[in-house]
């Protein structure tokens, strides 16, 4: 059957392309006593997951809860012993499973990652993402060098000072984001196709006009979703790197009128050097409060002023187009997600869906709909999707799946081009579900420019 695949067919870059020269930063060595907050052990038990990051030599680096160091040290030593023991056998420890606890290990020299979770799905990828998150702060080459220079017993926390919240929010977004099945996908904030076109061309022309050699990407982010993305010539940014940027700009402490100049390593682009991110929230003030962030990425550390100029031009051009700006502000403030009722008749039985285009790595998610309203209700639906996504990656031959549950029905359709996860009401039949899904795909295709970024403009 021929199915139209909404969401564009332009392949996103998946490999790291490091041909561009990127500069290095020296990170200052600051001594600071870590605050030992009181921890509640029970709190840990209740969490759906628990992450430990430590050095190969058993030094704790990060634990995603404020815990008494004395308590974690023993656990950390245990993890270290497990991993190094397996390594001494010429093997590597991947995972341990007890009744309802799943423990996943990742050994990326010089660090060891470990996650304990009630949910077994995709824990390995989660640890990869965390590794990349740390790389984005230090870069991989620095990470490797640090222990050589400072000795095995060096406390990496000194270098990561203040970035715990980034790791934390990376973990939360993984778990709690309503969108990401895997962090290697992004979602576009719904916009009028013409508005998006205007936004992209404006950004591209301003960046192009500035002729800054080394400014490679311009991204506009709102509500953890991408509004527009422009790039220099053929350079591509990997969705995982993009998620690191999103994670960075969603940090509340940055969201002020001011502008920020942050060194950031994008490991999928080049894990040895740093980009400089010019981050600004042009309308994040009392009068307007549009939660939009402009990120301009350059490899040169002295481009701050140039990029500031570019940003000003973009802001001015956008504000000058009055008609555009009103629509734009509205779309950013309250994003208008895809409503299931758009499908048309007989779609009442569809409660929620999540669509992932495999080539452009973009997802589209339905707006919330009765009866999936409370966080609990939505969480259960999302867990189902997450589980079936993990199932389909484990069993690549699995193409369609229809499960009649006691509370709802699950319909999964995976092809080479897209994956679709649907939650239906309990009384739907497979035939009806399939009919609704076909209509849904048609509808998405006809509105694809609204819900996906089809062509990323280059300058």
């Amino acid at each position: 059957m021929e199915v139209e695949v909404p969401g564009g067919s332009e392949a996103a870059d998946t490999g790291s392309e490091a041909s561009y020269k990127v500069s290095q930063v020296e990170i200052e060595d600051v001594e600071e006593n870590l605050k030992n907050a009181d921890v509640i052990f029970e709190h840990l038990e209740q969490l759906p997951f628990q992450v430990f990051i430590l050095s190969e030599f058993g030094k704790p680096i990060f634990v995603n809860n404020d815990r008494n160091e004395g308590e974690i040290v023993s656990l950390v030593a245990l993890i270290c012993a497990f991993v190094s023991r397996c390594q001494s056998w010429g093997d590597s420890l991947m995972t341990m499973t007890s009744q309802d606890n799943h423990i996943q290990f990742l050994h990326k020299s010089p660090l060891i990652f470990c996650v304990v979770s009630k949910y077994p799905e995709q824990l390995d990828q989660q640890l990869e993402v965390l590794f990349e998150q740390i790389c984005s702060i230090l870069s991989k080459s620095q990470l490797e060098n640090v222990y050589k220079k400072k000795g095995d017993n060096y406390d990496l926390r000194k270098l990561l000072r203040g970035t715990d919240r980034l790791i934390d929010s990376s973990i939360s977004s993984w778990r709690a984001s309503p969108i990401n099945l895997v962090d290697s996908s992004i979602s576009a904030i719904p916009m009028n196709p013409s508005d998006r076109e205007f936004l992209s061309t404006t950004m591209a022309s301003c960046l192009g006009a500035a002729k800054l050699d080394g400014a490679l990407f311009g991204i506009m982010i709102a509500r953890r979703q991408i509004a527009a993305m422009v790039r220099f010539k053929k350079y591509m940014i990997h969705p995982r790197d993009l998620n690191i940027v999103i994670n960075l700009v969603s940090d509340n402490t940055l969201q002020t009128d001011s502008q920020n100049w942050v060194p950031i390593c994008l490991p999928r682009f080049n894990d040895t050097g740093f980009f400089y991110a010019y981050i600004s929230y042009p309308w994040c003030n009392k009068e307007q409060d549009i939660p939009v962030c402009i990120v301009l990425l350059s490899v040169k550390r002295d481009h701050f002023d140039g990029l500031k100029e570019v940003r000003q031009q973009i802001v001015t051009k956008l504000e000058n187009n009055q008609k555009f700006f009103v629509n734009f502000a509205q779309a950013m403030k309250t994003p208008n997600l895809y409503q299931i009722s758009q499908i048309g008749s007989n779609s009442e039985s569809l409660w929620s869906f999540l669509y992932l285009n495999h080539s452009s790595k973009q997802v589209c998610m339905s707006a919330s709909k009765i009866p999936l309203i409370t966080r609990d209700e939505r969480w259960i639906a999302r867990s189902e999707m997450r589980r079936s996504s993990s199932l389909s990656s484990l069993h690549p031959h699995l193409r369609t799946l229809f499960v009649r549950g006691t509370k709802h029905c699950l319909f999964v359709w995976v092809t080479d081009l897209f994956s679709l996860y649907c939650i239906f009401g309990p009384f739907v039949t497979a035939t009806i579900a399939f009919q609704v899904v076909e209509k849904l795909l048609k509808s998405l295709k006809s509105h694809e420019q609204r819900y996906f970024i089809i062509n990323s403009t280059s300058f």
Partner: protein
Amino acid sequence: MLELGASFIPFEPDRSSHDGNITRNFFDCSSQRICTMRNNGALGLTSKSLKNDKIMNVRTKDRGEPSTVKFSPDGRLCAMQRTPTTADVVFLEKTETSLCLELTVNTKSKEPLLAVEWVTNNQLLLVNNHSAELLYINEDKKSSKLLKATNVNAAWAIYYAPSQLLLIANGQSCSYLQPFVVTHSQFTRMKGFEVDFGGSISKENFLEKDAAIATIYGRVYVLVFKYSNRNATVLDLYELPFDAATGPSFKHSLILGFNGGCGIHVIDNLVVVHHQASQKSLIFDIRVSSPSKSHSPLVVTTIESHPQHQPPPALYTNFWFTFLPDIVIDSSGGVMYSIRLKNEHAQLEIADKQTMLEYLARRSNEKKLFVTTLLACLKARALSLRQIRKVFAMLTGVTGKSSASENSVENGSGSSQKPVLDCEKYASLAVTQQEMQSSVLIPLREEVSLPESYVANIMLQYLRSLFDAEITPEAYLIEMVVETLAEAGEMSKLQQIVTYRVINDSKPLAFLLLSYEARCSTLFQSGVDILARNKASDEIVEVMLEKKQIVDAFRFIDVRNLNDALIPKVVEAANQHCVRQTRYAIKEHLTEKKAKASLYKSIGDELYTAEEVKGASEEQATCALFEI
């Protein structure tokens, strides 16, 4: 195991006194009467039988000493052979004053008579060397008339009254036996046969005393002693077919294991051979399976006398005469005894329990003993499961399909030939399911010392035997089997017999299974399956609601297109047990089905507040992070 003299009758023993009075006794095999003649009847003729108390006492003329005395079946006529060629029919009408009237009959050829036998109350059979003749005796006219004659060479002849069978020996060494059936005033010639009697120089001819006829398990057999100089004597059994077309066949060979004089009885389908020299009696049961035609004695025992005889009579004496089927005549003491089996001793005498139970099952009128013995064996766990199965198969095989075919073969109607031979039917033991349950299975269940799984296995074997015999098990039996299996914790077996429809579906069974759900969850599904097969849709909905499977109940209503009457009940249950999401789904579903709004109005419209919906939509749109 054999008891002498439970019934007996005394008579005056033979004697020749000084005063010239002679007393002689005769036994008539056909009418089973002993006849005492004093002075050849002049001083009186007395005949007695064990079967009835009626003693006949008459006087006849003294016309010489008779060689045989035969009574007609009704006892009104008596045939005596006083000369070699003639027979006298005596009309036994009691006359106080005068002697009995007599009529002399003979064969046409006037040859010496070999046999004189009553075929019916007024038909007399005479056999001589060359022919067999059937005479009609007219009691009123005191005359005789030849009804039928057939030419046959005869060396000797024996007559088997129960089947009206005449067996004539002829040929060289008299070993060719020719059976005739004498019915409807006709001679029906059956296929003759040669017997192997172990002839030798010292024993040239097959003698009348070495042959006997008996009915065993519904078939007529000719029993032939086969002597041998080297080996012990063997008793061969030739089976006579019921029709005239097939020839008799050699069926069984009973190994006696001794030489010398012996007497035969056939009691309750058992062949009993009494050996005088060793004072032992061998009991043979030809139904005991044997790899070849040869049978060894099932029991070797010694006759005991009934305690009513004090002092106990001497046993196995020279004065003993044995007659089929069970008569022993002590000619010195003047007592006629019967021998009977004491089956209650079988447990002691037969070591193998399965053989013993099968033995008991084959005895007539021993059902009670069989059932109690079976129960005792099961309680004592004396039988292996395999043996139990065989015993059950034997019991159910009787009442099942095989009984029809077996009986027809047994009684000859199965063959295309018209049966001419008739004999006493053998009825196998039939134990109904009800008797089985009340006398065996229930007592077993109540026996606390037995493991439940053992009892359950026994019941399964019984069930299996019923199935093998294509008998429908009674509902109460199934219920008990199910209960026992459940008690024994044999849930997998229970599951299997339900799944494979070993036991028939019924609603009570379904509910029984449902009630075992706590012990074996899969039985629940089995129960529901039965209900489904019974189209008990309403019950299924009830069961699902009971299990709080409300969504499933609704789906079931949809699939089965059940009427709307069930819906309010389901909606009610949903309101009680379901989360709001499910209730919403039910409501939507009913709306879509265009069901009457009154059916689901109790769900209410206010499941979701506008505020909540707005909040969720905002959170979703802005990708707010949250953890559960």
